């Protein structure tokens, strides 16, 4: 599913965020990428999510060598192959949950009625059937993140990338969101979670620990 081989990312100014990283994640895995801030895990997620290109090395996502794809094709790859979940949710204010989720399918080429139908299904899947017409400010933090997850999975992408999905939530809401991600994994989606929280990482089947742009540990967890 994901194959990083000898990937480095050096930012202008000489900061090395990724230093010769190789990593393979197979289809259907659920992986935590853990590490303190500044360890390069966000850069790793951006690289895997094709939002950023590496300085050197090869990144393959879903069989595509990212380096060979034009910006347009990368966009299409993100649109159909990867779902993103962010710490700050990135929901549009004053827009009902259903529209927020349907907007996630805007670039899929589907007609609007079909987008809304799929959005409805996705919201039901994350347990928000009763909140479809609520706007973000009417929802709790946990519910907002569920809306964001619904948006990420509405197009049924094989890969879900979550960047600190529980970072802005209290522990109860966070646990609920993790439970939801585990359910998505159980239904076949490859899930990659970035977290600085060792406790959350420790409950996932596989943990990749990073420090200073390198992978320092990669082992199966307690789950």
């Amino acid at each position, binding site marked *: 599913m994901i194959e990083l081989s000898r990937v480095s990312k050096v930012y202008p100014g000489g900061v090395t965020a990724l230093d010769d990283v190789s990593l393979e994640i197979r289809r259907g895995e659920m992986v935590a990428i853990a590490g303190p801030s500044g360890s390069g895990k966000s850069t790793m997620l951006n690289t895997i999510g094709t939002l950023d290109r590496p300085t050197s090395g090869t990144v393959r996502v879903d069989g595509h060598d990212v380096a060979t794809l*034009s910006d347009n094709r990368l966009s299409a790859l*993100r649109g159909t192959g990867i779902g993103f979940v962010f710490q700050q949710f*990135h929901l549009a204010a004053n827009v009902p949950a259903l529209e927020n989720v349907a907007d996630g399918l805007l*670039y899929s*080429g589907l*007609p609007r009625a079909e987008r809304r139908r799929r959005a409805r299904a996705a919201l039901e899947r994350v347990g928000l059937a009763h909140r479809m017409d609520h706007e973000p400010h009417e929802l709790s933090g946990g519910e907002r993140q569920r809306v964001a997850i619904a948006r990420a999975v509405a197009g049924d992408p094989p890969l879900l990338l979550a960047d600190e999905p529980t970072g802005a939530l209290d522990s109860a809401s966070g646990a609920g969101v993790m439970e939801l991600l585990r359910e998505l994994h159980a239904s076949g989606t490859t899930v990659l979670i970035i977290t600085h929280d060792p406790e959350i990482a420790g409950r996932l089947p596989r943990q990749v620990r990073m420090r200073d742009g390198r992978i320092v540990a990669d082992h199966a967890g307690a789950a």
Partner: protein
Amino acid sequence: MAGREEVTPRRAPGPPQAGRDLTPPRLRPRDVLRVGAVGLRTRPLRAFLSALGIAIGIAAMIGVLGISSSSGAELDRQLSALGTNLLTVSSGQTLSGEEAKMPVEAEAMIERIGPVLSVSSVGQVQDAKVYRSEEIPEARTGGISAYAARLDLLDSVGATLRAGTWLNAATHAYPAVVLGSATAERLGVGAVGPDTQVLVGGRRFTVVGVLEPVALAVELDTAALVGWPVAEERLGFDGHPTVLYTRVDERHMDAVRDVLAGTGNPEAPNEVDVSRPSDALAAKQATDQAFTGLLLGVGAVALIVGGVGVANTMVISVLERRGEIGLRRSLGATRGQIRTQFLAESLLLSAIGGVGGVCVGAAVTVGYAAYEEWPSVIPAEATVGGLAATLVIGAVAGLYPAIRAARLSPTEALASP
């Protein structure tokens, strides 16, 4: 937009889905509109204000053009109603600067010119001042002149009565007077009737009629018109015409014009002024047109300022919505689609302003024309041109912000709050 090169043949390490088609689908036009309206819906006040800038510019231009076209249409209407074939022959001054007099026979002589259709005349009654009553101090003449008028005067100059009747074969020998529109106003004469009398040359005259303003003979507006015989008998009128109004066959206007002075006053053709009043009206219109050009320039400047406002709004919008841009890129939006979104927003903004401005400008035109009792004309080319100009302005104003939005790297956009 980056080229759409073919995917290079690849080793397929992954499972079957590696063959996924990676051509980004196009946005449907309705979705482009929808996504372009996102900014307008989330910040309606800002959108309204920046559209207002455009609207003011367009409204000013449409209003100026509409009012000037309407007044032009009114002039055309007037001229076609009044006719452009009126030539006025008036006595000027002698070489020594005195008031010249046309011969008494002038009217008859001009009538003999072939293409002259009709001649009528008025003769100023010197020293006959006009007052409302005997109580008015002598110095307050109000700028009103008494004229002896021929009975066919109204047809010749295209004048109409506001009230009462014109002089006729019965009244023109008796102390009856018809007042010009301004004269009636200055004397405070409202109603017409046997009881309404004014003082002309020290005698009481009954007001039998009041004229509407006469476009082709403005001197009649400040006149008090009495019959030719009564003027000669009671007011000491010498019978010399002051102004001759001739209707001429349109095809021979120039030829007639050349001979009018000589015919009217063969002894001193230089003491006669010949003019074509419809020319004067048209010339006044042309002067107004120069002013219209100036106002149009002001409107254009307002429009450009409005465009700058839209550009400003768009730049701020892009800065504020970096997070949204990053999100959309992560959802699969291409650079082109982000650029399209912001360009559509800018075009929508200015189009809303343009349509609003056209409506306001048209309303102003219709209102003003109705107030002036003109036919209202809103030139189609101004409307179409105005809307085209707003779209061009919207495109220019939105281009740079849209390109900036599209160039934003997704990670950078997502990192900003």
